[in-house]
């Protein structure tokens, strides 16, 4: 990436980090971008994990044992939160962009977040049960 492009990218990001006086829609947008970056990073981690299949089953299963251990449970929960938020806000934006609920954008965002929290709680419970084992 050329220096000028990098400088332009950094200038753009710095503009987004001016938080004073911002409203709910702005925070939703900012978290959407942030969660998108986290999901892309996770995608690369996932590709690294799949690459281990080429190394051999021992390496792959060793890595799986590591990430399925309870230490990684908070990371799984964070990943669910990020993914569910990205999906929920994306769905809300898509609904708005089809022309529905434009005047109730904030209410729609709150509704999507409530649904998102419920789905996240269930997903976290399920993965915790799987990771920690059934008592």
């Amino acid at each position, binding site marked *: 990436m050329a220096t000028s492009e990098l400088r332009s990218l950094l200038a753009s990001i710095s503009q987004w980090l*001016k938080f*004073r006086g911002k*409203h709910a829609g702005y925070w939703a*947008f900012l978290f*959407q971008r942030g969660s998108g970056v986290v999901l892309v990073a996770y995608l690369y981690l996932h590709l690294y994990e799949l690459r281990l299949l080429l190394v051999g089953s021992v390496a792959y299963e060793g890595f799986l044992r590591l990430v399925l251990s309870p230490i990684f449970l908070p990371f799984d929960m964070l990943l669910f939160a990020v993914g569910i938020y990205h999906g929920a806000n994306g769905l809300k*934006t898509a609904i*708005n*962009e089809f*022309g529905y609920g434009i005047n109730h*954008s904030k209410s729609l965002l709150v509704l999507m977040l409530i649904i998102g929290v419920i789905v996240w709680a269930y997903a976290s419970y399920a993965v915790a049960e799987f990771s920690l084992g059934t008592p």
Partner: protein
Amino acid sequence: MTMLQHTPEPVEKENAKDKITVKIFRFNPRTETTPNYVTYRVPIKKLMRIMDIFEHLVEVQGVDLAYRSSCGMMSCGSCGILANGVPKLACVEPAEEGMVIEPLANFPVIRDLVVDRSLYDEKISTLLPFLIREDSHLEFPEFVRHSQMKSRNTFAQCISCLLCMSACPIVASDSDFIGPAALTRVASLVQDVRDRGMETRILKVSGPDGVSRCHFIGECSEVCPVDAKPSLAIQILRRKSTRSLLRRVLTLRTQNYPSRLGTS
């Protein structure tokens, strides 16, 4: 002959409580390399606006502050500034203690609080900001039903104060984006029953820097002082743009449709 006796008005004693402190952005790009914030103390009055601070500084204290002002009643849209980081009109925003006043964000500063509006002017001039008619109207005033103009009237409230452009994070990161102010103007014309230029306008706002660039963040509508609903205007244009594209695809007339590949 009776001599008129001039009784001098009693001079009010200055009280520290009667003054407020404000911090104002000062920058002259011709002579300075970096902006600085200067603190001023001005006497507070009842129902004092930010514009009154500027007028006091220039007319009473003799400060060479550059700012824009015209109607003073929220109609001309020239006095947009950032008050504590939020885009506001100086002619209506109340003055407060400790306020930080800056020029509108996302525009180059000409001097102090005056920004270069050409970013907007150049864009709006390419979007045919006038009624396109097939024939001249026969009578005056023209017979138009209120119900026909209702949807247009919301967007026609826009006073081009550019607070929306200043609040938009997409304008902040991509200055090529047409922006909410110009798009609201286009929406008001597109929704006008007298106008016949919808297809031309929709084509102009359907490019990569047009309506598809908006992410429906809604900051533009939040800061709009006249409730012209710029985010709603953009979504209406987006809907019309999508329909226009579908019509063109179905009738195989996509050659003039703007795309990222360079056709215009």
